[in-house]
């Protein structure tokens, strides 16, 4: 009979194929808490006195990250303020917002809900609508783009505008770190996607902690970076957390999803593949970064004042394109 590798309990809830470890509910929750806090120390993600802006969608990853980081807040090591971004995805985001509110209320954490509409004058649905009216009907591949008039994927807009808002809200709140719920699946997908697309600038930015030379960018941290997505889902259920379990309606269109399915398929017969992808990447990254980091200083976007390599930051170049 399978018993918990730590305490001998016969009711196990996970058999970790990559390590051979079996864990009961209590020991599994404890092991994830320990792993996340150990990684937080190992990668120096947090320092005493940090004010952390938690990017809280209400989904399992950010809610789990919030609850684990809250243990540091309870010990007065850090302070946390949470922000939920309402991108304006009708029929999807509303429930996540309510769940995010409920979690922060339970924990007594300050929470803000900010929206694309409020900061950019339009929702993600409207951005997509604007693009649709600009396309010709023969478009087949939504990921193709040749110049500014070609349509982009919803995830491209969402990523750019979310990053912009997170950085702006971090400044407004005086936050010293921005924490996100990125997990092991997300990271290995990003490594593979950027490599396959030849996007070396983005590839060398992947890591547990952002390392921008520009102080105007608040440092971003990923405390769950080495936890597989499935284990985060299991943690959320095992710890009986209130999480939003639903898929973004735009996700089905993305290249990330294709890559994610490919990695999942590989993982069935090779359960360590995500760990080895991450470990291998982390080893070569310092060399890539040293050799390939673009030279030159970051300037300022002439429209919004945020740091930008060009005259306009990415968010403002989209906005100007629609005007």
């Amino acid at each position, binding site marked *: 009979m*399978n018993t918990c590798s730590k305490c001998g309990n016969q*009711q*196990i*809830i*996970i*058999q970790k194929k990559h390590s051979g470890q079996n864990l009961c*509910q209590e020991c599994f929750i404890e092991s994830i808490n320990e792993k996340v806090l150990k990684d937080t120390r190992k990668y120096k993600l947090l320092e005493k006195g940090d004010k952390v802006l938690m990017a809280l969608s209400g989904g*399992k990853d950010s809610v789990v990250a919030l609850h684990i980081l809250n243990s540091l807040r309870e010990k007065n090591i850090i302070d946390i303020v949470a922000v939920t971004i309402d991108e304006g995805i009708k029929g999807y985001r509303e429930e996540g917002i309510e769940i995010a509110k409920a979690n922060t209320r339970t924990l007594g954490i300050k929470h803000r809900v900010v929206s694309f509409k409020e900061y950019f004058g339009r929702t993600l649905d409207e951005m997509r609508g604007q693009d649709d009216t600009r396309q010709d009907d023969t478009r087949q591949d939504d990921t193709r783009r040749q110049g500014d008039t070609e349509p982009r994927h919803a*995830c491209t807009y969402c990523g750019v505008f979310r990053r912009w808002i997170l950085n702006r809200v971090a400044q407004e709140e005086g936050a010293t770190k921005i924490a996100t719920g990125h997990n092991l699946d997300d990271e290995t997908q990003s490594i593979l996607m950027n490599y396959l697309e030849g996007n070396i600038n983005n590839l060398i930015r992947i890591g547990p902690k952002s390392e921008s030379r520009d102080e105007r960018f608040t440092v971003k941290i990923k405390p769950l970076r080495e936890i597989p*997505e*499935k284990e*985060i*889902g*299991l943690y*959320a*259920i*095992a710890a009986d957390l209130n999480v939003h*379990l*639903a*898929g*973004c309606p*735009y*996700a*089905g269109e*993305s290249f*990330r*999803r294709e890559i*994610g*399915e490919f990695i*999942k398929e590989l*993982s*069935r017969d090779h359960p360590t593949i995500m760990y080895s992808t991450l470990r291998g990447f982390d080893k070569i990254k310092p060399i890539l970064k040293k050799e390939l980091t673009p030279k030159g200083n970051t300037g300022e976007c002439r429209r919004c004042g945020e740091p930008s390599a060009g005259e306009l930051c990415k968010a403002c170049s989209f906005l100007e394109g629609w005007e």
Partner: protein
Amino acid sequence: MQVKVIFGEENLTEDVPEDYTIKELLKKLEIPSETVVVKKNEAIVIEEELIQEGDTLEIIKVIFGG
């Protein structure tokens, strides 16, 4: 033997043979096991868990892709 299966909004009654596992049930229902957590009679179980007559199985989708 018969078991009750709850999957999202769906409430199903499934006929399964003796010594059937959660893994086999997920395969029968065409649900990828790496995307769900399963509770048997309200307790989380692993996919090798055997199903018994009258069990209530709740399949909770935790991974949505994207």
